[in-house]
């Protein structure tokens, strides 16, 4: 494993909650802290690392209602739909995806709210704003797995 992969491996889990976490991670790899930090900055510059941050379990942070909404939008309207949905603070993810036979939905949004009513209001607002009429609000019934990717 090269240094870059080792740094990714050190950051894909949890960084230690102590004053100088990168110094500790660097020491674990036998690297000086400066070299580790330079490696992290390089990963960021190249867009491989989006950011180092805290990831919150939204349900436990008061956002108890969330749904994946699958939208059927005409190809010519997909771009403007995506931009409108992305502008909403209640939407965390928005993607255009391929369709399949019997499944014509091409845009997907994750919508969050502090209550079901609030979440549904956001969905309704998006439908009105974009003119999208066909969509499915796919609320989650059970969580089987939610974790982060392990790369190396």
């Amino acid at each position: 494993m090269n240094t870059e992969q080792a740094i990714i491996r050190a950051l894909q889990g949890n960084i230690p909650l102590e004053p100088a976490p990168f110094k500790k991670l660097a020491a674990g790899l036998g690297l000086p802290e400066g070299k580790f930090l330079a490696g992290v900055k390089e990963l960021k510059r190249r867009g491989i690392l989006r950011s180092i941050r805290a990831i919150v379990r939204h349900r436990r942070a008061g956002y108890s209602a969330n749904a994946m909404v699958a939208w059927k939008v005409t190809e010519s309207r997909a771009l403007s739909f995506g931009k409108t949905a992305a502008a909403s603070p209640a939407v965390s993810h928005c993607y255009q995806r391929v369709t399949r036979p019997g499944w014509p939905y091409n845009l997907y949004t994750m919508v969050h709210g502090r209550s079901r009513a609030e979440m549904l209001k956001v969905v309704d607002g998006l439908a009105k704003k974009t003119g999208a009429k066909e969509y499915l609000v796919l609320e989650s019934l059970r969580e089987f797995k939610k974790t982060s990717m392990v790369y190396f």
Partner: protein
Amino acid sequence: MVSRIDKLVLDAAQAEIPCLSRPFAALGAGIGVSEAEVLRILKAYKRKGVVRRIGGSFETRKLGFSSTLAGMRVKPERLAAVAGEISKFTGVTHCYEREGELNLWFTLGVRGGMSGIDNKIAEFRRLPGVEKCHSFPVKKMFKIKTLFPI
């Protein structure tokens, strides 16, 4: 109850932890909270499970991985077993039962090209009780921003 200081710290830490020698001191300086207090609050919310992870968030594609979202139709009596089987695979990071025709949804990532995804999907499709399994790879990404103001 979340105090004003807790909220400041959690919101700032969700935005970004700076890549500096003393990141928690720098994060705290921006919002007028001491390094020790920042660490105390983050540890407390991590312990409570509100914070799932504090670490790097990567662009999967740029690391040479391919990914997809998949939706399955599974016989209700086999749903939990199939979900358990699928979830054993490291590349499956999210797996949910949802309402509707496709009742089991998961995200899948594998190193290499889309053929690896297709192979894995084909493998999952063969699990007993799976009636349908569609893979919906991304055509265009509009937003990923999982920041939840506390």
